[in-house]
């Protein structure tokens, strides 16, 4: 049985089912990260003292990761634009770049975590590190998840382009919406954890 409204627009919503589906999912993600941000505020305002992020964390590495993630958002949207222009090979280059940048983000994060572990700065050390590991760990899982989806569309999932290019383009757009959301979360995590 075919999935309905993958290409054609539903009259009642004015959208494809995939588009409304990904936005509903992102709404739930806002609440997930919102709950953790609320926890951060509660813990920080309730603490008698709170360390500045830059005294415990590596700001240059986090700045590098910010640049990496913003760049990956641009390559992601360019991948979608390439499909809109019917340039599949260009799509592959941009999507490959997005995956590599995501991988670069995780590698930098690995070096950050390794340095912390080496210094004995573990999640149980204090509340600051507990919320730091929780927020950045969850965000890192989202980066890994987004990379898996993007890798699927770069590799085996790309077969759909030959049989139904419009549907494939829509799917890449939806994957892009998730990836941009992950970038958006980092834009708020970076100053909150590292600079304040």
């Amino acid at each position, binding site marked *: 049985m075919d999935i309905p409204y993958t*290409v054609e627009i539903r009259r009642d919503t004015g959208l*494809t089912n995939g588009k*409304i589906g990904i936005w509903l999912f992102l709404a739930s993600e806002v*609440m997930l990260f919102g*709950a953790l941000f609320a926890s951060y505020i509660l813990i920080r305002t309730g603490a008698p003292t709170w360390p500045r992020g830059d005294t415990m964390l590596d700001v240059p590495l986090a*700045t590098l990761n910010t640049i990496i993630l913003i760049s990956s958002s641009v390559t992601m949207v360019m991948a979608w634009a390439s499909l809109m222009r019917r340039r599949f090979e260009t799509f592959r280059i941009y999507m490959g770049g997005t995956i590599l940048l995501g991988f670069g983000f995780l590698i930098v994060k690995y070096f950050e975590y390794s340095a912390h572990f080496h210094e004995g700065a573990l999640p149980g050390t204090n509340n600051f590190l507990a919320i730091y590991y929780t927020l950045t760990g969850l965000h890192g899982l989202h980066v890994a998840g987004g990379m898996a989806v993007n890798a699927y569309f770069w590799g085996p999932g790309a077969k759909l382009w030959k049989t139904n290019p419009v549907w494939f383009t829509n799917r890449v757009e939806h994957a*892009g919406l998730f990836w*941009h959301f992950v970038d958006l979360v980092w834009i708020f995590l970076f*100053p909150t954890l590292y600079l304040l």
Partner: protein
Amino acid sequence: MSDHATASVTSDHMAGDHAVDIDKHVRIYITVFVALMVLTIVTVTVSRFHLPVPIAVTVALIVAIIKGSLVACYFMHLISEKKLIYAVLALTAAFFVVLLVVPVITVHDGFWVH
């Protein structure tokens, strides 16, 4: 920004004349990318001044909101979306505000009781 490129694609949207519209979008994406980089530098530079916490939080939040809005409006195409998506996001925003306000009330030790 035209609605055609931002709504989910139909086969008509991928026709040749639509490529011109996409070219405009690509120029916007590059501009937004440069703006995001500049704002990242601003965020890091301001943090080096070691401003008092309330001012530092305000500045950092304002810059982050501008950056987030650029990503949401242009990369996520929210600047020209359908009403249903705006409705979903408005509801989400309302609950998000409640989530952030609840801890603040808690910190004030239930001021409404006294």
